[in-house]
């Protein structure tokens, strides 16, 4: 049952026929894990908290830095030096005290990821390095957890939702990470501050639709966005029988750290 206050808080959801009181209850009972409390993670965390997703996990080992504030809108100037997950948690519960925020102030790795994702219905990748992106894909595929992939660079972004063994996964597109330092990172190449807002909001939408069980998820389609040309494109994809993790004869059967994809800054955080 929703309380009077909840009926008022979520009234704009409840009047949607796709949500209603029942859908709002599903959101309140939902459990979503956000990996990365940065550019993508910021709008995801804010919107999921506002929407009343009942349990939100957020994982990041980093502290807030001045250079984050141009885009990571969940962190404020007085938060500099504070753990990002703590800064994020404060804003999320300030928006919506209904929400239980579980923080993981650690980097995800092969050693901890399977245990962390186990308690969640839907996972969102808001990380900034290939080692983490491939690890999240492998862990989610192996555990059968649906998740949203997101990647950004400069003025470009891409996102896709993965339903393990049903729709194309990240390794169906990219079988292995690029060699380290082959592809620049946002800290090397820059990123326009609003870009993660656009992509992260799409990822949060996918989590909400998944919990509601409504609409069509962004599966078997890679959505690409270019902010300079203001263009969205969809590239249709199919699962690949030769995929190393979700294919017919997988070579990856347990999670492992992609050490070759880690850069020095990933390792130190």
């Amino acid at each position, binding site marked *: 049952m929703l309380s009077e206050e909840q009926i008022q808080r979520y009234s704009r959801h409840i009047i949607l026929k796709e949500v209603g009181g029942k859908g709002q209850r599903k959101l309140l009972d939902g459990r979503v894990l956000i990996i*990365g*409390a*940065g*550019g*993508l*993670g910021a709008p995801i965390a804010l919107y999921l908290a506002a929407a009343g997703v009942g349990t939100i996990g957020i994982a*990041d080992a*980093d502290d807030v830095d001045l250079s*984050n504030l141009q885009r*990571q809108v969940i962190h404020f100037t007085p938060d500099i030096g504070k753990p990002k997950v703590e800064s994020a948690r404060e804003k999320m519960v300030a928006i919506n005290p209904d929400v239980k925020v579980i923080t993981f102030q650690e980097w995800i790795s092969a050693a901890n990821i399977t245990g962390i994702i186990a308690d969640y219905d839907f996972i969102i*990748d*808001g*990380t*900034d*390095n*290939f080692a983490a*992106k491939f690890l999240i894909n492998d862990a989610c595929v192996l555990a059968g957890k649906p998740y949203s992939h*997101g*990647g*950004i*660079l400069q003025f*470009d*972004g*891409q996102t896709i939702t993965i339903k393990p063994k049903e729709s194309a996964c990240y390794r*169906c*597109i*990219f*079988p292995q990470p*690029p060699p380290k330092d*082959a*592809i620049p*990172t*946002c800290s090397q190449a820059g*990123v326009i501050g609003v870009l*993660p807002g656009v992509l992260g909001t799409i990822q949060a939408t996918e989590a909400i639709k998944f919990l509601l069980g409504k609409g069509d998820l962004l599966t078997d389609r*890679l959505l690409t966005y270019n902010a300079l040309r203001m263009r969205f*494109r969809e*590239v*249709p*994809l*199919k699962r*690949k029988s*030769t995929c190393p993790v979700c294919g017919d004869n997988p070579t990856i059967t347990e999670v492992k750290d992609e050490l070759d994809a880690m850069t020095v800054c990933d390792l130190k955080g």
Partner: protein
Amino acid sequence: MQLTVNGKPAVIEGRESLNITSMLDELQVKDSLYVTVELNGDILDRPTFDSTIVKDGDTVEFLYFMGGGR
């Protein structure tokens, strides 16, 4: 020959067909060592880039790594 590349028409002059490796050269595709190539809806395995032939009218998508997020 005319192709549709990432949703836009692209012309490669003086060729009726060519393999993926040559197409990447002709179109001066950036990060060609790491790009994923989808031909008519199928993602190609990199080891088949020399043996896979692109023909007039084919649809090609280049998918690039994007590693940022924080």
